[in-house]
């Protein structure tokens, strides 16, 4: 779990991690918001269902895959936060959505 410090970079951008709203500094990533929110897991693996949180934070490991603003399988560590962004955990493999 990570915490913000009283810092020259104020937490000004409001995002939603799961259903919880929190503020993070401008220029942070969705993965940083996940760590700051203290979520127990951002996804469960498709193979064994084991919980994962971000590991590398630099686009290498793909363990931070999340549903961001309704789009699944996004690398949360590569997505810069925007006001109102919704970051949701992903369970197992992404389900294909075929429009009716």
């Amino acid at each position: 779990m990570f915490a913000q410090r009283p810092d020259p970079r104020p937490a000004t951008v409001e995002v939603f991690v799961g259903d919880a709203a929190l503020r993070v500094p401008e220029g942070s990533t969705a993965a940083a918001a996940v760590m700051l929110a203290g979520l127990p897991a951002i996804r469960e693996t498709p193979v064994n269902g084991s919980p994962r949180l971000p590991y590398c934070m630099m686009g290498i490991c793909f363990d931070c895959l999340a549903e961001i603003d309704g789009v699944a399988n996004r690398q949360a560590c590569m997505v810069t936060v925007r006001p109102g962004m919704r970051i949701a955990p992903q369970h197992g493999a992404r389900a294909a959505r075929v429009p009716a």
Partner: protein
Amino acid sequence: MTDLAIIGAGPAGLAAAIEAASLGLSVTVIDEQPAPGGQIFRNVERASSDPALAGEYGSDGAALVRRFRAAIQAGGIDYRASTTLWHLDTVGGVLSLRGESGTGSLVAQRVLLATGAQERPVPIPGWTLPNVLTAGAAQILLKQAGAVPRGRTVLAGQGPLLWLLADQLAKAGATPALLLETTPRGALRQALPAGLAGAGFWRGRAMLAKGATLMAASRRAGMRVISHVTGLRAEGEGRLQRITWDGGGSTEADTLLLHEGVIPSTHVSRALGLPHQWDETQLCWRPEVDAWGATPHPLLAVAGDGAGIGGWQAATATGALAALDAACRLGRLPEHARDSRAVPHRHLLRRMLALRPFLDRLYAPAPGVLAPADDDTIVCRCEEVTAGQVRAAAALGATGPNQAKAYLRTGMGPCQGRMCGTTVAAVIAQARGIPIAEAGALRPRAPFKPITVGELADLPAG
């Protein structure tokens, strides 16, 4: 059409862009991050005044990025932030890109890969548990969000970055409780000749002094250090709860930060089919390049840590050298001018690499880091494949990571083998009693990063 496309806006890419633009080349810089600096100087324009990040980051890093911004102002550089290269046609020099405004392509006369380094995977039992991260990940959280780990933090592994991070966390008010250092007994004695050769210690004295200062500062801040640790394990139910090691060592922990040095990010250079060599000293794959960073392919060059680990200052030198060579190849700079302009960069490069042979030997990862001994340890995080399964595949006839893929799906998950490729090669090599070079490097395929079907469909025709 651009003269020189540069992939990556870290120290190598920035130095190359500045040099190439000053020679009149049109330059396009492609970078996945929203701001220049690479991993080492990530978010430096926003975070340089953070007291926890004072030092090279706040001074040299900020200065390099300022020079890049000034070069953009002066003209000749098209900087495309938040943009991913997902395919490169090496016949026509066509780059397929995905940016914030969608997919598109770009034709370049020459392409410089400045993709930098990634942390070496540290496959210990339990390394997939939530709250086990790399040391670099914690540093990125500090740079990008001003965040620090809460509770009891333990660092494990070895190398200069761990001491730098310990010092930065201490300055940020989050001193790690414990460092479990994995450098084996006797490593220093064995590494000494490499430091004495070529006056490496003398020429690298500033770097050595900085290292000593960092070590003293983190100990002073209250971080305990246990040396010569082997048999690290991360344990817990659904999250990290404790860390154990050989000899009955055990500690509770909320966050574990692992680090065993960095290796070149060769995902794209391997996908392009460029020849790579297994570096026996740095224990990693590196693309074959000449003294200018040029690969055997007429279109492609590699600069910075992506061509072999040398650190950020060496990367600025190799970036500038690759830019000079690009100008020469494109007929904008005569050979003699290229060679004379290269002199200061070659001096810098020699100075910055002086200490490297000593550091490479001192902090060489233990054999168990390259190929975990415990059969139950996960090596492929995506597909959750264990070292034992890879050994079984080797016994059945898998000769390298490209064959293991078909047996086990290692390298077929979302990371495309970025994390497991080197480990799978090392496990197979050990099981079959062959050198890692013979097991071979994993050959990824495009797209280098996942793109959606919609993005693919949006590509302009032709």
